[in-house]
């Protein structure tokens, strides 16, 4: 934190281990009385080295490693990776498989948004909404378990298609679950739009204008609540979204209330889309064969996860293992807005502003840069970066010198 006049005021450190945060992240809020005057965030406490680990596994094994990048949106990572590998191998999954992938992706969006609604209601102190929305979320968890065989890491994807079919019986179970949830979601929309005490925590809090959202590179529902038309399902439709278009949900207000409304209205859109796909499910195969060695090349895939855009870069060198993988999840793009929007608000509003972007800390912790201890030898005043080999040699020297 820079040593300015602002930092001489009282600073409230939060994290990395803190009962209010479920995942490790360090925040420092400089406060003047109750008002936040400066904010600072430091991430990277949950870096797991997944990208490096992916280089030592084969193409099939990586599918399950990457599904574990995020526990909430696990399907979208498997989906993005499968799409990238299929495009590199010049293969297209059969239409039925693509439709089933989209069904699972939308079911996952419903589960993620309901989970988020509960968490942020809890941050606002509205535990009744938290309890009841999580009770109803069990409906979608049961649907996912019945459809895919697991509640969390669904493993729906396989390179070249999907693992399972959606039978008419399964479709009826999904429809029944969605009908129940639609009624409940209408009730929750009514609650978040009209509850006096809850509105005091959301209305006019953390307002992000459209230009701010564009400058800070906000993504997903956070950006759409500020009227930024950014939804890859609409802008660059992939898989079955080409045949089953989605209506983008937008709001102009940009405050926390708008973020709640955008996410809840997206639920209705997901219910409609799943029902539409179930009624018009394409016939055909579930998967096609993918070679064990993927042709050399580079591929970029962008998909719309529940929190925003997920970015995958894959480089293949023609063997049965990938050469380089880069994953970027939406939280890292939205984190800037937390730091900017907290300033000027009461400290008590900060947890709500943080929860408003639907953060997922361990998803975004990915890159580590280690600098040499050469005290700013570079022309830009920074110390030079340590390469992988230099780091390895450094570790060996340190080990031997014990």
């Amino acid at each position: 934190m820079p040593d300015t006049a602002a930092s001489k005021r009282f600073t409230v450190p939060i994290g990395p281990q803190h009962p209010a945060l479920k995942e490790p992240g360090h925040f420092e809020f400089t406060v003047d009385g109750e008002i936040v005057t400066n904010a600072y965030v430091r991430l990277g406490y949950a870096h797991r080295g997944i990208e490096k680990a992916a280089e030592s596994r084969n193409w099939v094994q990586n599918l399950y490693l990457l599904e574990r990048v995020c526990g909430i949106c696990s399907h979208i990572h498997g989906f993005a990776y499968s799409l990238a590998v299929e495009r590199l191998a010049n293969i297209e999954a059969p239409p039925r498989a693509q439709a089933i992938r989209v069904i699972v992706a939308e079911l996952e969006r419903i589960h993620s948004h309901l989970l988020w609604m509960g968490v942020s209601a809890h941050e606002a102190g509205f535990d009744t909404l938290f309890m009841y929305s999580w009770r109803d979320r069990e409906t979608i968890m049961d649907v996912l378990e019945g459809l895919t065989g697991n509640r969390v890491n669904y493993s729906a994807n396989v390179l070249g298609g999907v693992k399972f079919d959606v039978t008419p019986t399964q479709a009826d179970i999904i429809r029944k679950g969605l009908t129940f949830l639609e009624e409940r979601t209408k009730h929750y929309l009514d609650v978040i739009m009209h509850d006096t005490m809850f509105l005091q925590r959301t209305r006019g809090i953390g307002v992000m204008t459209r230009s701010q959202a564009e400058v800070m590179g906000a993504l997903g529902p956070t950006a759409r609540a500020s009227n930024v038309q950014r939804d890859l399902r609409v802008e660059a439709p992939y898989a079955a979204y080409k045949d089953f278009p989605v209506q983008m949900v937008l709001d102009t207000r940009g405050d926390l209330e708008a973020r709640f409304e955008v996410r809840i209205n997206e639920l209705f859109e997901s219910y409609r889309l799943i029902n539409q796909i179930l009624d018009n499910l394409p016939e055909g195969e579930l998967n096609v064969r993918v070679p064990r060695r993927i042709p050399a090349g580079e591929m970029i895939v962008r998909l719309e996860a529940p929190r925003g855009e997920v970015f995958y870069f894959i480089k293949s060198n023609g063997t049965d293992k990938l050469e380089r993988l880069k994953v970027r999840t939406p939280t890292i793009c939205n984190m800037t807005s937390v730091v900017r929007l907290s300033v000027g608000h009461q400290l008590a509003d900060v947890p709500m502003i943080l929860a408003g972007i639907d953060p997922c800390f361990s998803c975004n912790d990915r890159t580590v840069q280690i600098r040499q201890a050469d005290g700013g030898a570079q022309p830009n005043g920074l110390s030079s970066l340590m390469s992988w080999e230099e780091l390895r040699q450094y570790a060996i020297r340190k080990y031997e010198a014990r």
Partner: protein
Amino acid sequence: MKRFFTMLPDITRSLFRRPVTENYPAVQSETPERLRGALKWDPSTCTGCGLCVMDCPAEALELTVLDRKAKRFVMVYHVDRCTFCGQCVMSCKQGSIVMNNQSWELAALDRNSFATIFGAPEDVKEALANKPEDGAAKSE
């Protein structure tokens, strides 16, 4: 129009309802048909190709091929390493591997009980002779 206590009807209704939580383990709900539990392996259809071992992301499978023609295979399945992804079921062209939706209560106090050995008893004996570290594992 702002209102107070918007969720009061939910709370009132819940007062007269039973809890939604399941009374496990006293009452066990039905497991979904597709639930991925511990796997079962059938040596009679196995060809010993080893694709399941190659594709397993958790290195939970070990296949020892004693005699491919006589179909003498021994499979060691480490249920504690298994992530229940079902890739082995997809990779097996012969359908020798199935995941049992009934066996999901897999907690145990003894570490050795997590390795399940499939195969004919004499094959298991021969295979284990070369792998003494798995000697304590239970046989099925």
